[in-house]
């Protein structure tokens, strides 16, 4: 579901810079009683900078960022920096509500916060809950906490895998049901809802008209295994001009557009994740396959990573990749069309095949260290080597003239994460 962004509009990440020194490192969340309801405020944030060795394209951490490290600027503070606040209210022993706001770089280069979550939870039993409102789209192992850098060893979730579903929330409902067979904890989750592009620019919308998913997690001691299936109906603005032009060529053009354009097309995602964290070391991995009968085709991503904890230091390693089954199309047949249209037909066919080949293929190797240097604050340094697939720009954006597809680049990242 990758979509390219409009031209860059450079500006500094001032928000996170302004907030961190004022906050210092306070101990605990504020918690107050209001007319019998317990209200707590928690927050999290990351202040990070990234340097890319390639100055002909931008590296970004998410689909929402209009620019990043590379062609827009050599060192970027917008890629990883964000701040979030969560207000939770326990209204009765069974009823609670959560609102989470996050301020990070938006597609229009502002830092206005958006409502990531806003839901009401009814705890039917201690092991069974129902939520309604804006809830998480639980595609990945770390979907619930992907913005909380302090909760993770690396600077950011692997972009190769996590870019396969840029939609992070659903307006709808979800439920979790927990079972305890013997020493095992099994949690079955289901979610249903829709996401009408509230964080994408109008010219580049990604709408999930509706989505539903079922996820099962099995925990046994330090081991976790998670399986998931997600089915959504997607509408993308990506490639609209090309498909509109194809439709001008009668039934054969319309058939091609219907075949490849992502207008209310189903996308199915199958996912498998596992982690093992006995304390002094940890390992985790995730695999995901996304399938769609459209130009998006079939994408497969996975990563495997781990680290070893030595006092306050946690060095880590990771490999991550995304690959795509690239298809091609013969496109319009010029034989049945007037001869003077041949150049236009050739251009459209080339455009169609360029779109089919534009899917990201990228392999990355990561090494870094996390240092828990004071309470509730960590410092991370990370080095990535990105190899782009032949002919591919990978997950990079803002590609400039002179960019070489299929090249290798390096990233150097530093980040401070905090919770309060």
């Amino acid at each position, binding site marked *: 579901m990758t979509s390219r962004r409009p031209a860059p509009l450079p500006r500094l990440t001032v928000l996170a810079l302004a907030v961190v020194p004022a906050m210092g490192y306070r*101990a*605990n*969340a504020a918690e107050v009683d209001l007319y019998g309801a317990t209200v*707590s405020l*928690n927050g*999290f944030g990351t202040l990070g900078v990234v*340097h890319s*060795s390639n100055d002909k394209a931008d590296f970004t951490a998410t689909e929402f960022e209009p620019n990043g490290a590379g062609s827009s600027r050599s060192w970027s503070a917008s890629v990883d920096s964000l701040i*979030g606040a*969560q207000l*939770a209210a326990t209204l009765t022993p069974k009823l*609670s509500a*959560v609102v*989470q706001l996050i301020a990070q770089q938006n597609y229009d280069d502002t830092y206005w916060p958006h409502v990531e*979550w806003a*839901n009401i*939870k009814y705890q039917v039993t*201690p092991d069974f*809950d129902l*939520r309604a409102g804006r809830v*998480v789209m639980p595609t990945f192992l*770390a979907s*619930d*906490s992907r*913005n*909380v850098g*302090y*909760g*993770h060893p690396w600077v950011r979730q692997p972009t190769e895998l996590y870019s396969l579903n840029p939609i992070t929330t659903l307006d709808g409902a979800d439920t*979790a049901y*927990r079972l*305890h067979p013997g*020493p095992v*904890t099994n949690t079955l989750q289901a979610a249903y809802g829709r996401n009408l592009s509230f964080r994408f620019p109008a010219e580049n919308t990604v709408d999930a008209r509706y989505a539903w998913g079922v996820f099962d997690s099995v*925990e046994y*001691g*330090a081991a976790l295994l998670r399986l998931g299936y997600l089915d959504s109906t997607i509408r993308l603005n990506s490639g609209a001009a090309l498909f509109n032009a194809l439709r001008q060529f009668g039934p054969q053009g319309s058939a091609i557009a219907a075949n490849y354009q992502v207008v209310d097309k189903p996308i199915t995602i199958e996912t498998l994740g596992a982690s093992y964290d*006995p*304390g*002094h070391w940890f390992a985790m991995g995730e695999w995901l396959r996304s399938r769609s009968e459209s130009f998006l085709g079939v994408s497969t991503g996975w990563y495997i990573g781990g680290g070893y*904890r*030595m*006092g*306050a*230091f946690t*060095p880590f390693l990771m490999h991550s990749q995304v690959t795509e089954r690239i298809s091609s199309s013969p496109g319009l047949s010029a034989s049945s069309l007037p001869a003077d249209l041949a150049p236009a037909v050739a251009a459209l066919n080339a455009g169609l095949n360029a779109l089919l080949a534009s899917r990201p293929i990228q392999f990355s190797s990561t*090494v*870094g*260290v996390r240092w*828990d240097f004071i*309470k*509730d604050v*960590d410092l991370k*340094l990370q*080095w990535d*080597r990105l190899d782009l697939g032949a002919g591919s720009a990978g997950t990079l954006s803002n590609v400039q003239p002179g960019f070489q597809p299929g090249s290798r680049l*390096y990233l*150097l990242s530093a980040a401070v994460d905090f*919770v309060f």
Partner: protein
Amino acid sequence: MNPIGRPAWVLIALMLSLAGGVANADVVAVVSAKSPIVALSKSQLADIFLGKTDRFPDGSQAVAIDQAEGSAARDEFYDKVAGKSAAQIKAFWSKIIFTGRGQPPPTVANATELRNRIRANPSVIGYLDRGMVDDSVRVVF
């Protein structure tokens, strides 16, 4: 060759030479002497204190209470039952809190208050230095 290729490896080598040690006193998990619970395993304790269950193995309600953040007993307890440092526990809960699906156990100011809470409620489970154990509470791990 890219100039940022090398320093990362030097840094990792440096980190590998800086491993830290953990001191060990004797911290035990306790319930009220009135509780029917006699013994718990390390993994059962970890599940209760990490919010994976709110039940004892017999099905009765379990209410975990923590000592204050930064206390030696707390750090040692989590190191013992979950193999996790204070920072790891904080990172673990920061993930759960921001899902909106859980909160860490409530904390008390000191060990004496914790012992009072355990005495008063057979559902409560906590941890104390062995020297704090008396007839009103039972060691279960």
